C-alpha cells in the first residue's frame, strides 16, 4: 500500500556529500563579493571607453564635413562659337561628304 506523501518524508532522492552545501555557500559568497568589488573598478574604464568613442565620432564627423566642401574654382571666360562653326558641327556625316565632293558643273548657269 502506497504511503501518504507525508510518510515519505522530506528526504530528496539525490544526495550531496557531507559539507558540500556549506562549502558551496562559502564559495558563492566570496565570488559574489568579488564580483561586486570588480564591478566598481571597471566603471571608470567604461566611462573612458564611452568618452573615447564619442571623441572619435566627433573627429570623424569633422573630417567628413571639411572634406566635402567645394573646391575653389577659377573663373573662365565663356567661349564664343561662330555661326559657321556651329553649322558645320551640326552637319551629319553624309551632308559633310556631299559638301566635300561638290563640283562646279552642278551649279546651274543663270
Amino acid at each position, binding site marked *: 500500500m502506497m504511503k501518504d506523501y507525508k510518510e515519505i518524508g522530506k528526504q530528496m532522492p539525490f544526495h550531496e556529500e557531507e559539507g558540500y552545501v556549506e562549502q558551496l555557500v562559502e564559495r558563492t559568497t566570496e565570488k*559574489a563579493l568579488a564580483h561586486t568589488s570588480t564591478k566598481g573598478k571597471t566603471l571608470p574604464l567604461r566611462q573612458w571607453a564611452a568618452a573615447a568613442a564619442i571623441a572619435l565620432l566627433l573627429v570623424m564627423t569633422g573630417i567628413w564635413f571639411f572634406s566635402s566642401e567645394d573646391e575653389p574654382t577659377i573663373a573662365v571666360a565663356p567661349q564664343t562659337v561662330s555661326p559657321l562653326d556651329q553649322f558645320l558641327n551640326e552637319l551629319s556625316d553624309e551632308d559633310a561628304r556631299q559638301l566635300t565632293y561638290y563640283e562646279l558643273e552642278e551649279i546651274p548657269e543663270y
Partner: protein
Amino acid sequence: MKEMRIDNERNNVLEMVTDPKRRDEGFRLLTKQYGERLYWHIRRMVVGHDDAEDVLQETFIKILNHLSSYRGEGSLSAWLYRIATNEALHHLRRQTRIFQSIDSLAPALVEKLEAETATDGKAVELLFQKALLTLPTQQRLAFNLRYYDELSYAEIAEISGKSVNTLKTNYHYATEKIKEYLKEHS
C-alpha cells in the same frame, strides 16, 4: 523568545550590511544563516546540481546588489526567498522556447531528476519528486515552500505575490494531484 532572537539577529545583519565598512562581514553572516535553505529551495525548483549552483551564485549577487533597497518591510527571509525564486524561474525560462511555458519543462526535469538520483536513493522518494514535477510551476512552488520549508501562507504570499487564499487553493490541488499520482504509479 525565539522570535525576539530572530529579530535581533536580523537587525544585526541589516545593520552590518548597510554599513559600508561592515557590509562584507554582514553578507557573509547572511549567507551563512540562509544559504543552505536557499540552496535546497533552488535545487527543488531547477532539479539539476549544476543548475542549482549557477542559480545560487546569481541569487547571492542579486542579494548583495539590492541590499540597500531592502527597507525592512516584510520578513528578511521572505525577501531572500523571493530573489532566489525569481532567479530559479528565470533560469527555467531561459530553457524554454519563445511562447513556451515553464510547465512544459516537466519531462526534461524528470529526466534530470532520474539522472541525478543516487543509486541508493529510495524509489518512493524518486516517485514523490516525479509527482511534484507534474504539477504546474506555481502549485509546485507553493507546495515546496509550505511542505519543505514550512513557511506560513503569509510568508509564501510575500514571496510569490499571490494571495493567501490562492495559495491555500494551490496547495490543496497540489496535494490531491500528488496523492492521485502516487496511487496510479504504486
